[in-house]
């Protein structure tokens, strides 16, 4: 419960942060790489994640989880153990669940499961993934899959994710939008962004 509250507080705090413009063109992610976007987006960071949107995160959103290290969660806020109150640990209490963490030896299937488990926690709705297949991310052999869920607001959403494990770190880019409209409207733009990813130092 404490973990859920802290996750909600984090998302609430993120909700107060205004978006900033990402103009069409090259966008650099410090230390990780860069992408090219054909259109303007709006950007704000949440935790360790870069998030982009056009109409608001509940309508469509593109997320960049870049350089997740071995043993880490997709977002810091998903780390149940580190967010657990040390006083409770002192009294012998332990969290009632464990974090879903990336491990460098995970198979692509396991990474997809890590993703759906993490996203289910964030969205508070069951996220289902399908269509896992090989794909390229920044010139590295990786994988991609589609996913879907019905949010708490009863709106169906679709998404796709492209990822790769490079030098023992996970790089994952995904795009999600309302199934009825927003996903399809900018899917091609999102695909172009993901396809343009270049790892840092490879220019």
């Amino acid at each position, binding site marked *: 419960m404490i973990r859920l509250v802290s996750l909600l507080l984090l998302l609430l705090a993120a*909700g107060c942060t205004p978006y900033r*413009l*990402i103009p069409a063109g090259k966008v650099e992610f410090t230390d990780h790489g860069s992408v090219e976007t054909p259109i303007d987006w*709006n950007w704000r960071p949440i935790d360790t994640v870069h998030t982009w949107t056009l109409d*608001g995160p*509940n309508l469509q959103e593109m997320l960049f989880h870049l350089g997740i290290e071995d043993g880490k969660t997709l977002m810091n806020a998903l780390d149940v153990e580190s967010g657990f109150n040390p006083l409770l640990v002192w009294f012998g209490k332990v969290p009632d669940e464990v974090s879903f963490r990336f491990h460098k030896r995970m198979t692509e299937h396991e990474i997809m499961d890590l993703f759906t488990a993490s996203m289910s926690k964030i969205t508070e709705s069951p996220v289902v993934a399908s269509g896992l297949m090989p794909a390229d991310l920044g010139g590295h052999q990786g994988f991609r899959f589609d996913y879907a869920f019905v949010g708490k607001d009863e709106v*169906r959403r679709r998404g796709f994710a492209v990822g790769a494990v490079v030098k023992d770190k996970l790089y994952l880019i995904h795009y999600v939008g309302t199934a*009825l409209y927003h996903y399809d409207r900018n899917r091609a733009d999102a695909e172009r962004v993901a396809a343009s990813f270049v790892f840092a130092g490879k220019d």
Partner: protein
Amino acid sequence: MCRWCRLVAAFLLAGLAGCATQSYRTIDALPRGAAAPRILVMPPDIELSELTAGGSVEMNAEWTRAAERHLKTAIREHLQRIQASFVEYRAPADDAPEAEILDQLQPLHATVGQSILAFHFEPQKRLPSKKDKFDWSLGPAVTHLAGHADADYALFVWVRDSYSSPARVALQFVAAMAGGIPVGGGVQTGLCSLVDLKTGQVVWFNALKPREEGDMRELEATRRTTAFLLDRMPK
């Protein structure tokens, strides 16, 4: 809620509420050809809940059914009064091909409306890529509605209302007696949109700011809420 508690709550909400509604439109009047534009009135998406002493809200089905009836009546009366041309939505059979799409339009409208509230009405929170334009859409799926009812625009209404349980009212009273500790009561909030059924664009939007007033369990109070919601709607 007791009169005194309402007064305190009203002061507390004053900063939040300001005026009751805030509207935004892209057109002042609906374009007219030979015939007046026809508005398809969607069933109101409404939910009434009870606010417990602990602060959680529990949906009350009986109140919700009553409020839905009242809101349909009040909307119909309002549109008749302003002499708008309208038709009420009739849901297709569950196995109709368009049933799922039409079912999704209601929650999509609510989510688009919440995004408009979050990212348009507060200038400092606007999405910079929109360049201050009011540009929001439900997408081309709304054309299914046009074919469904031979209409030009659709009116979507979303309302959430909650009322303090007796235990909550007692808690408010005790808190007030114990030095004026503010304990909030039920809150009414809502939004509505007029959507162009050719494009899906929202051409008019109005939001009822959160307020500790109104009682949609009663028809007369629902009429007042409806007047706020549909205030200055183009026709």
